[in-house]
């Protein structure tokens, strides 16, 4: 069953066609990959899907619902969560508070209700706290809940960002280069975490340059180049696709020597 459908998505920045008529589908329960050389339009695609940028044209549908024109906070409510290529934690907050912001939409009871003394808000906060601690445990940050988010090591910050996205209880999680800057041991841990998430039924859509991760995890890979889909399919096929090889390594000279 298709979860996310992208149809003819287009984004021009002035005369630059960052995303140029992109169409593809992410199915429920799979790990899909989005790869392509630098500047291919991968992050722009994610920004269009999560509503941070208005598209020039085309449609994004999640579970059959057109997300067009919806602000990012409404998309979050419909089951879309994401992480960022450059980690975007709330620096002034602790690790736990960062995750709790992800719980925000599950806590909402209205301003007046929150000011009124009473159990509703307190119980919601207690539940959120419990869930945040579970998530910390899941991503391997147990015991660090009171650390300032900025004090975490780089790899830990990446995992905190994932935990914060998971706190939104998404259907689809977009990960923008989750392995960037990680060493090989950390990347392996990340892959184990992402597999565990898939086993819990979460659908993942990952931008990544680390081919070990893409080839090891993804059921299907979409390849972008110059804003267009040049290939899509299982990783084994993608690896051998001449168009993909050309996009990454450049064209072979006419006379045959590379």
């Amino acid at each position, binding site marked *: 069953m298709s979860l996310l459908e992208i149809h003819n998505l287009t984004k021009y920045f002035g005369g630059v066609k960052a995303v140029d008529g992109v169409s593809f589908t992410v199915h429920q329960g799979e790990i899909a990959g989005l790869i392509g050389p630098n500047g291919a339009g991968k992050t722009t695609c994610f920004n269009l899907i999560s509503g941070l940028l208005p598209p020039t044209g085309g449609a994004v549908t999640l579970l059959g619902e057109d997300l067009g024109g919806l602000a990012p*906070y409404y998309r979050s409510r419909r089951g879309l969560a994401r992480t960022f290529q450059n980690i*975007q934690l709330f620096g*002034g907050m602790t690790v736990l508070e960062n995750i709790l*912001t992800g719980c*925000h939409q599950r806590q909402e009871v209205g301003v007046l209700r929150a*000011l009124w*003394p009473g159990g509703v808000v307190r119980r919601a906060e207690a539940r959120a706290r419990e869930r945040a601690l579970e998530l910390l445990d899941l991503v391997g940050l147990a015991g660090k809940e009171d650390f300032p988010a900025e004090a975490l090591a780089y790899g830990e910050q990446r995992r905190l960002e994932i935990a914060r996205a998971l706190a939104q209880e998404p259907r689809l999680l977009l990960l923008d280069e989750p392995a960037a800057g990680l060493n090989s041991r950390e990347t392996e841990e990340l892959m184990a975490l992402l597999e565990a998430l898939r086993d819990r039924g979460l659908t993942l859509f990952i931008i990544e340059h680390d081919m070990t991760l893409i080839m090891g995890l993804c059921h299907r890979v979409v390849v972008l180049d110059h804003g267009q889909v040049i290939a899509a399919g299982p990783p084994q096929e993608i690896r051998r696709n001449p168009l993909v090889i050309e996009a990454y390594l450049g064209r072979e000279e006419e006379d045959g020597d590379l």
Partner: protein
Amino acid sequence: MSAYLLHLAIVGGIYIILAISLNLIIGYAGQVSLGHAAFYGIGAYISALTSLLWHFPFPLAALSAILFAGICGLLLGLPTLRLKEDYLAIVTLGFGVIVDMVFLNLEITGGPDGLPGIPKPSFLGFSFRSPGLYLFLTLLAVLLTLALTYRLVHSYHGRALRAIRDHEVTAQVMGINTPAYKVAIFTLAAALAGLAGSLYAHYITFINPESFGLHTSILILCMVVLGGMGSLLGAVVGALALTVLPELLRQFKAYQDLAYGALLIGLLIWRPQGLLGSGKLSLKFLERKG
């Protein structure tokens, strides 16, 4: 307590409410406002006018001031809070100047002469004529403001506001309706400033546009910056310090502004986060344990 000290305490209390309300906008939500005194003035004039024209009892006049200032905050916030910081600064600055001009030019506000003879509050069989009783009333308003804002900033709403301050786009991605939050906090802050204006009008019993101009907006801003952005206790300390300090420096009258300015510059150089900006109001006992 001497009459002079009582006066300082009452004025200090009014400034505490103003500093706390502005701190909600600047320190918690991370937005800029350079026209906060406008809401203070709107509250003062509405409270004075409803008392003088329609003989509203004080609680009703104060409530009118709170509501009207809040509505003005909402109306200003709705179209402007999608602006980026520097533009928001210009818009709020302009709003402050316009409101000041309106006070100065309307007939009903008495123009530059202002409104004299505003009645001292008397309700529930109490007359708050004496400064001692008025101080009690002011402290009640301060405590109410503190309790309200404390609950707010320590709830998930406070966390949402800090998220907006830290990274607005990321806050949106987390599912936080950032425009709604910004407008709501702007409205609440304006309403609280309206309360402060009402307290001021019925204490001094005479108001004119001079009290609500740009320099008052800047003074409140200084209180927030001095005390520390995003700290309730900081706003209290900042408000009290900038109420008392000019009085202490009065004997060096010729140098008052100089010393005052030098102090602020020194503070911003050596402690830009304010006196308590990194610290936190420790009132854990008020927090209900879950």
